């Protein structure tokens, strides 16, 4: 199993600002993922964080809005840039592949005013 921590756990931000969310895993993992969960909704994959190369973004998500870093095999950051109220969501990082158990971090609850 993997233990994942995220910082911050929650934040309230003003529109137009940016927030960087950190994800730390207690073991080296190849695949790290960032998800968004809007209120009352399911999980939507934002991107796959690749170590040593650019993140792979899903349709509807772009690097300028959600830049991702993956400096090593245990850590990743997701930045939500130029925020608007529509960005108010829970942001979750996870590890694992589609053939294995997915472990999720506790999530970052973001409210944009």
């Amino acid at each position, binding site marked *: 199993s993997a233990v994942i921590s995220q910082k911050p756990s929650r934040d309230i931000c003003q529109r137009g600002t940016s927030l960087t969310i950190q994800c730390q895993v207690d073991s080296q993992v190849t*695949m790290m*993922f960032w998800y968004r969960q809007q209120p009352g*909704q*399911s*999980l*939507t*994959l934002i991107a*796959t964080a690749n170590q040593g190369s650019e993140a792979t973004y899903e349709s509807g998500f772009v690097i300028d809005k959600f830049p991702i870093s993956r400096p090593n095999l245990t850590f990743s950051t997701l930045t939500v840039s130029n925020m608007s109220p529509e960005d108010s969501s829970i942001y*979750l990082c996870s590890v694992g*592949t*589609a*053939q294995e*158990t*997915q*472990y*999720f*971090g*506790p*999530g970052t609850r973001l409210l944009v005013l």
Partner: protein
Amino acid sequence: GQQVMQIPQYQHVQEGEDFTTYCNSSTTLSNIQWYKQRPGGHPVFLIQLVKSGEVKKQKRLTFQFGEAKKNSSLHITATQTTDVGTYFCAGPRNFNKFYFGSGTKLNVKP
């Protein structure tokens, strides 16, 4: 593209009643996973089904994978208040990624 649909969206039951959520895919799945998310929490892995027609049990929870590997169900017998939460199925999109179902939110009245 591949989609994973889940019904019902909500279910309110009296404690002790049974509960079932259904998951359907437009394409054949290599496996399907089920997750539970408690209110205010994050998704937690429950089980993975791989074989056609597979049935797995965890105490009061019974998971089934359809013969065609396109549908799955989660059945809870005699619900308890600790079962409250949202249940998601998830099917692989490719080797590394998942499609999550829309989820079924279960509320159990004591």
